[in-house]
């Protein structure tokens, strides 16, 4: 079965010089596609989780009474929201990368303890996190003052109000925008290519450089993979949105 499957794609490659689905019959190239896909998924999942945490914490800090804390958060947002993620990746990896501790396996190499994958995760999480802070802030601001006052009249502390009243309501308002931002984040992981993170785009381009005949098939793989990945994110978020819905609240 597998044999005839591979044989079929070998024939396709022979008859159509630009449609060489090499990864279906060459084990090494198949390995590259799979490892690239895993790296993209791993990067996406990690960045989604970290960026949401950053968003929640950042939005809470924005509501803090201390001016300094609020200043730090708004500085962070300005820095990460107003610079391109591409530049951030280069800056983190090449500029900040020099100041991180390194270890040396052979006396010359200086392998930084934060790898290019690590920097990609940090950079992309903070990038998307900056947007998430603003998204959650918008959600928080949509919670009526009177609701908060009612909670405070019932004896809730500031933290309790945020945790039990404001945040759950704000989250519901935030989900649609959050959905957008996370979809964007998954797509932005391709930019980690610039610091040679071996994700799906990197591996695809490597394959079509080594085998120019495999370019079209690799493009197809890229499109299908990202459609599927983003599809999973969107479906998940929509399901979550429906489950979180409070009847009569927020339309």
């Amino acid at each position, binding site marked *: 079965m597998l044999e005839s499957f591979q044989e079929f794609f070998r024939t396709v490659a022979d008859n159509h010089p630009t449609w060489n689905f090499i990864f279906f019959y060459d084990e090494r190239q198949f390995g590259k596609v799979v490892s690239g896909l895993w790296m993209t998924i791993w990067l996406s999942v990690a960045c989604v989780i970290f960026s949401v945490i950053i968003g929640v914490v950042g939005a809470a800090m924005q509501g803090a009474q201390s001016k300094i804390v609020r200043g730090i958060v708004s500085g962070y947002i300005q820095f990460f929201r107003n610079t391109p993620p591409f530049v951030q990746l280069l800056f983190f990896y*090449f500029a900040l*990368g020099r100041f991180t501790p390194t270890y040396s396996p*052979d006396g*010359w190499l200086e*392998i930084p303890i934060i790898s290019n994958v690590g920097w990609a995760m940090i950079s992309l999480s903070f990038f998307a996190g900056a947007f998430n802070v603003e998204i959650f802030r918008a959600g928080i601001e949509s919670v009526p003052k009177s609701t908060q006052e009612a909670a405070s009249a019932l004896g809730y502390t500031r933290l309790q109000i945020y945790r039990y009243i404001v945040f759950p309501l704000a989250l519901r308002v935030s989900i649609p925008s959050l959905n957008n931002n996370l979809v964007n984040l998954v797509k932005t992981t391709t930019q980690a290519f610039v610091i040679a993170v071996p994700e799906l785009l*990197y591996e695809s*381009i*490597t394959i079509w450089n080594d085998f*120019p*005949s495999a370019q079209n098939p690799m493009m197809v793989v890229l499109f299908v993979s990202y459609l599927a990945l983003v599809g999973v994110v969107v479906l998940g978020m929509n399901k979550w949105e429906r489950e979180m819905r409070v009847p009569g609240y927020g339309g």
Partner: protein
Amino acid sequence: MKKLLASTTAMALALSSVAASAADCTNDTWNKVVERGKLVVGVKADYKPWGFRDTDGNLVGMEIDMANEVAATMGVDVELVAVQSSNRMQFLEQGKIDLMIATMSDRADRREIVGIVGPNYYTSGTNILAPDALNFTEWEQLRDRPVCGKQGAFYNQIVEERYGANVIAFTGNAEAKQALRDKKCVAFVYDDSSIMADLVSGSWEGFSMPMPTEDDNPWALAVPKAEQNCVFGRFMSGMQYNWHKDGALLALEEKWGIQSTSYLKAQNDRYKDWLAE
């Protein structure tokens, strides 16, 4: 009857092949270039001194000089487009450029995608830029070690599969070289001619090109695949033949401070006019 059938078939075949070859040469690109009076050439912007940007940001270099001469010979203006190793063939395929002179190695699988025409105008092999401190002498020493490279170079795969190196391929030369300077890899695998030019430039103190050069591979310029055996392809063959014959490439090599290669001298001898002198 059988004979008649056979002869009709033969005639039909002959006719169809005539029709096919006539239809093959529509010379679309050539006509387009002449009509609009402008030749768009894809060249490198990160491969000193073949194609790079000068301090004013203009694209200059040996291949740019070649591109200018092609346009001058055709009597049209030239527009230079910076291409990268990983997209140069696609640019040509999609008609974003009419001609590609971009330090491309002439490989069999590339000939199936773009219209590569001879004679090859240059050649280079694979070597590494590495710190003297590591005392590299043979390729086997790269096994299981991180080696920086550039996306789009055909020898990345060879170095990985033959010598087991871990190639970390960056999108551009600048990133790969920066990673080497930052000691993120033990070497930068690239064309020996380009590494030589870097070493001569004096900015790589303490580095050298220690390996025996491997996989010497001629370079090729390319026209769109459909133009390969038509006017444009034939014309570019003629341009290259003349560059070799009258020593123009040797002169360009000297102009741009490239260490002279035995390949160009051999080609110069090979195509020498037998009546000259």
